[in-house]
């Protein structure tokens, strides 16, 4: 399949290039733009990025394959990244992962048949105080997970409603 950037994308790419003394540093941000536009950065998208930046395809592929957040293949509409690292493990991250596996009838790493959900087990997402938690498609965090919260989340995602930003209030040290 061939992909093309829109005029707005190309404008954005020019803006990004102006932030650095050479072109190469634009690789990561332009891969982000591509992923936002096409939903993934498979080898064809990587070729487009390389051609746009006039960089070797091998370089772009090298970068895309190093970083876990770039999807090297098509994923489900919603990618659920469940953290199971240290603090989340201690607070039940695996329980949440297994609950989702049963609920969505897929194993971690798989995509559901309807193409709606991809389930992943991921490393620390930096929300240790709000464990267990998950991230939806590289964007919003859903914190302090429970089975009920997962039920609600999956239901609303099925309806196409994505949750908003969950602000974590700072705990007050003094109880006043």
């Amino acid at each position: 399949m061939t992909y093309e950037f829109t005029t707005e994308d190309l404008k954005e790419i020019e803006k990004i290039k102006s932030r650095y003394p050479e072109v190469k540093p634009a690789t990561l941000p332009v891969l982000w733009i591509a992923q936002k536009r096409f939903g993934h950065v498979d080898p064809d998208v990587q070729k487009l990025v390389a051609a746009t930046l006039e960089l070797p395809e091998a370089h772009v592929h090298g970068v895309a394959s190093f970083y876990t957040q770039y999807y090297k293949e098509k994923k489900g509409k919603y990618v659920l990244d469940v953290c199971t690292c240290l603090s989340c493990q201690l607070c039940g991250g695996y329980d949440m992962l297994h609950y989702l596996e049963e609920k969505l009838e897929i194993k971690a790493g798989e995509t559901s048949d309807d193409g709606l959900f991809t389930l992943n087990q991921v490393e620390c997402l930096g929300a240790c105080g709000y464990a267990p938690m998950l991230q939806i498609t590289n964007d919003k965090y859903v914190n302090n997970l429970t089975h009920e919260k997962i039920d609600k989340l999956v239901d609303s995602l099925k309806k196409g409603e994505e949750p908003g930003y969950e602000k974590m209030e700072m705990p007050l040290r003094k109880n006043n």
Partner: protein
Amino acid sequence: MSTVDWKNYEPVLIPDIKDLHKIDVYEKNGGYQALKSILTDKKKWADPKSVINEVKEANIRGRGGAGFNAGLKWSFMPPADGGARYLACNGDESEPGTFKDRKIFEYNPHVFIEGALIAAYAMEITTIYVYIRGEYLTYIKMMEKAIEDAYAKGYIGKKIFGSSFSVDFYVHSGAGAYICGEETSMLESLEGKRGYPRVKPPFPAQKGLWGRPTTINNIETLAHVTSVINRGAQWFKNIGAPTHPGPILYGISGHVNKPGVYELPSGVPVLDLINDVAGGIRNGKKLKAVIPGGSSTPVLRADQLDGITMDADSLRTVGSMLGTAGMVVMDEDTDMVDMLWRIAHFYHHESCGQCTPCREGTGWLEKVLLKIKNGEGEIRDLDLLLDVTTQMEGRTICALADAAAWPVRFTINRFRDEFEARCKKSVHALA
């Protein structure tokens, strides 16, 4: 030993002020006055060196984990030669247990921006990049907005406060790689490459981004710079532990009632942090173990914690480190074998694969621990693990191998009974 008076400490980095992330509110609360002072008050701040000296005097020990005096690090920059010089701010924050810098991005981004601008002036830097891990998309957007606002108000850009100082400030998003929190790996990632750490020397101050002088500081470290310029090095030094002074953002997670990020002086007793600040162990359980500062810092048993405070020197006496001050608390039900296997899995996943001892070592640590976790290990496997750790440490380009080795060595040493109990019984009866 006098204890640190943490109960009366008023937070300065993340104070309880509504909407402080908005530039107007930040200005009303004295924002950008430190920057104005160093750029316009020539009596107080004769030249950039005077700023470096003040920060050096304050002894802000790097809050990213290494604990190196930030001002001293700044003084390693070579004299300006008219070419580009860079400040790379490290907001990668990927060490399990660490979630503090995001509070600055969210609640008080301008205190960090102002600190970074002060650092840029002090080191005659021309461009600032703030590297934020890709997962923090929400905070990346918040930082972009904050930087845009500061540009609009003239705090960033050309001839700031009418002085000759000009600087640019950009956000660079990561894309999911723990290793990019290592300073030279972060530079590679900023240059648009795979995040392979560089061999040092040359150090970044000599050859950093695009071969030009570069300084790398943690987000919280730079935020403290603003307070030091506003309140003076003496104020900073009078807070907390004398050899590791100043406020610290403690991130407390795990089995406590009130997990979260708390700004308190350094040197707070570990048990006070758990029992008073974080509301004690949840469900009325007993404390079993604590990882004081991110997953790579050696775990401590509950019986080691009496009188131990959160600063580098005190933690060293019991064989651990302050790291990022991201404390992970474990209750009596915690399975230490499972816990350690998960840490080993993390480091195996995140090893960049450049150095053999790390690429292979982290894999073996995980595999052998999985075997023990599944009840198929033998006692001698414990010694094999300890042996592997000694072959990893200090034999690689960056510290990831050490970070992977320490938890294995110290968790086994400090909870050996538990590990032996999971191993198969010896088939040879002792005579």
